[in-house]
């Protein structure tokens, strides 16, 4: 177990180091987030639409894109560097590879979200401070779920011929539950509703996370081994 985690960390560390060197993905995701927020801003007729009604959707559209960008990179990076083959011939435990990629992806998405959230507050003037803690919790729960599934799928498709295409297509149905839950929860939070009203959604997110993180950890090795 310690060895598993150590190796996972080696993989994650290398990904983060590469990202730190090039900053490609993180900055483009952050700028992408800014772009989405900006476009919303221009498009919106402030007299017609109250910000608060739109805010949850906008927030989650932004975060979903950032996450998709991250996932696309995770294995693409190995291909570009001709290193995927190297990982596969190495004795690296497949579960470690999965966890390593998951950690790197989560770190990545977390940074983008950490950049996106303040921008969001700035652009849309939504008062989040009083619900910050639960909001961060919701973001973390939802993100964990779909990044876990996405990491699995990105390994699944990376060696097929239509990798990017397939990733989006097969991931789509899996995005629905966490995304719906997250949007509804965020809307309730912004609306200042009592916590009791949202327990159902929280359970949904938590169940999704538990099921899919375990499932993906188990299934991952079948995606990379011949």
């Amino acid at each position, binding site marked *: 177990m310690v060895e598993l985690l150590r190796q996972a960390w080696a993989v994650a560390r290398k990904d983060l180091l590469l990202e730190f060197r090039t900053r490609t993905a993180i900055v483009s995701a952050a700028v992408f987030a800014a772009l989405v927020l*900006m476009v919303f*801003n*221009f498009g919106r007729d402030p007299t017609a639409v109250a910000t608060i009604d739109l805010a949850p959707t906008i927030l989650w559209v932004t975060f979903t894109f950032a996450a998709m960008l991250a996932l696309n990179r995770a294995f693409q990076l190995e291909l570009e560097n001709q290193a995927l083959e190297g990982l596969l011939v190495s004795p690296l435990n497949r579960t470690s590879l999965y966890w390593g990629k998951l950690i790197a992806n989560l770190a990545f998405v977390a940074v983008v979200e950490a950049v996106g959230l303040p921008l969001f507050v*700035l*652009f849309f003037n939504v008062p989040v401070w009083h619900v910050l803690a639960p909001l961060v919790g919701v973001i973390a729960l939802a993100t964990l779920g779909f990044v876990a599934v996405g990491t699995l799928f990105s390994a699944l498709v990376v060696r097929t011929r239509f990798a990017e295409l397939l990733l989006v297509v097969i991931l789509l149905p899996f995005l629905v539950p966490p995304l719906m839950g997250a949007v509804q929860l965020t809307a309730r939070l912004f609306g200042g509703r009592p916590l009791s009203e949202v327990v159902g959604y929280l359970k949904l997110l938590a169940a999704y996370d538990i099921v899919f993180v375990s499932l993906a950890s188990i299934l991952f090795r079948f995606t990379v081994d011949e």
Partner: protein
Amino acid sequence: MTLAQRGRWITLVALALLGAVYVRALMFTPLERMQGAAQKIFYIHVPAAIWTEGAMILLGLAGILFLFLKDPRLDRFAEASAEVGTVFATIVLTTGPLWGKPIWGTWWTWDARLTSTLFLFFLYVGYLLMRGAVREPGLRARYAAVLGVCGMFLVPFIHLSVFLFPTLHPQPIILKPSAPSLPGTMLETWLFSLGVFTLLYVGLVTQRYAVSLLREARQTVGGDHA
């Protein structure tokens, strides 16, 4: 006197004259009826804004000439102009909100004028980032020239956007198709200030130009390449 020293002197003179502008603005120019003392920031805000756009246009012109003449001096000038333009854009983006808080009751809104200025600032940042991303000097100069020329052509679109999009920000009073509409003393003070900012631009650009000369000299000797 070296180029750097000459630049420093011009800058110092310009800063001293800026003091004079404010003496004149505070003591000898009437208070604006609606806005009171806050309006005094106008004498920095607007010239800085004009030179933000002006610096981009000059660097674009230098870019066009560079593409034909291949004279490295033009590229050095463009770089200097970009750095100074960034400083001026920062000035606009700070004085604007300072002014906006008392007048509009908010630091920032997302209307066309403010946003387009922000994006002009981004353009400068992008321009400088790109210069940093290309190592080879010849290639860098050419790429920078291309982007600079595009930037120059973007300025009119940004400038004219206020006529098309609903905005909170005052419409142009001076740089507009019809004649300037500003009371006499205010106009005089403002013109004085514009002259001072022009001098400031010249001074700062001269200094930056000298710096890049120095850096190139050091590099051809074989020193720092990182």
